[in-house]
């Protein structure tokens, strides 16, 4: 399974970033091959629609699951629309989150908020 999450640096020990839309990087981890790749978030400096663009970047990684603290409703629409499962992050490193996920110990994410509109 490929799982993605927002992260502040290219390091498995870094914590999952509570900011989703404008996180600097996304980590994509393949639980079978144990391969970790990092993608720069194209929405990092977006003026508006960051949640949508960040979610699109996640969809384009072809991942099956995403771990996050929360998303805005626009990002959620994209993630859910692509049928990617979302899980609630715990306050720990990316590696620990991944381990918890594979052990079936992460809860599904239900914290969807209306979004922090920036568009002028």
């Amino acid at each position, binding site marked *: 399974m490929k799982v993605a999450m927002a992260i502040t640096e290219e390091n498995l020990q870094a914590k999952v970033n509570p900011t989703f839309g404008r996180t600097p990087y996304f980590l994509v981890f393949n639980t079978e091959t144990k391969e970790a790749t990092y993608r720069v978030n194209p929405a990092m*400096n977006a*003026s*508006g629609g960051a949640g949508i663009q960040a979610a699109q970047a996640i969809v384009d990684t072809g991942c099956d699951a995403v771990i996050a603290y929360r998303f805005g409703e626009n990002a959620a629409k994209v993630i859910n629309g692509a049928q990617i499962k979302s899980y609630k992050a715990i306050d720990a490193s990316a590696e620990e989150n991944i381990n918890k996920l594979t052990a079936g110990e992460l809860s599904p994410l239900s914290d969807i*908020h*209306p979004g*922090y*509109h*920036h*568009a*002028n």
Partner: protein
Amino acid sequence: MKRILVLSGKGGTGKTTLTATLVQMLQIKAFADCDVDAPNLHLICAKKEWEREDKPFLGMQISFIDQDKCTGCGKCVEVCRFDALVKTATGTYQVNPFNCEGCAVCQYVCPENAISSKDNITGKTSVYTHEDTVFSTAQLNMGSGNSGKLVSEVKKNLDDAVPKNEGIAIIDGSPGIGCPVIASLSGIDLALMVTEPTSSGLHDLKRIVKTSKIFATKIAIVINKSDIDEEGCQLVEAYCQEEHLPIIGHIPYDSTVSKTINKGENLADIDCPSSKAIGKIAEKIPSFLEK
């Protein structure tokens, strides 16, 4: 860290004065001014001897036409929805940076490839630091948009600079209900809404409450200049009761306020009816944050 945002809907109700007073009374070490269009908190809260770091803020990239390549064919004008292209004296076109929204549709249609995107400085952020205190603010350049993103930048600068993720942070918000307000509402634990007992104060309070409810933010109401109109005050209280909005305090009209603020001084240092009332509000803040 718990975050309090001070909002009002209507301008001039006393957000900045209240924020400045609470910052001093509660000895807040992390505070910000998200009224990026017309920031005022620094006039009371920033001291000359504090260190300050300024950074330019880039809004949306805007389009720019290479005058050597432009043939004046006008295809860009045909597609521009924002009236952002002006004809120059030589018959070529150039972009009006005030109107350009950065959509780049003109770039798509230009047959000469004369148009490209360039960075556009639309404001600046400032972070003041002194010992363990951090104050984050910004100024949007006049005529600019993207204030929502600048607001987010102010908050991010505050979060990045705060040494410990504990205590209370207070953020001075902006008037209205538009993008800077919406952007400031993210991650807020308590929105203090300042209103006045006037018809416009109540009218605007209703709209800001409606906006905040979209985010399910905890709200508490402050009625400022509460004694200028008893009937008006009762109307505000009745509305708050109907909507289950707790009133955290009333502040009486006090002519000492403007005299104090105009000297660049903080009400917290003055003994007067309004500062006493704000003192009572300050005492209730921790319990309101817990609820």
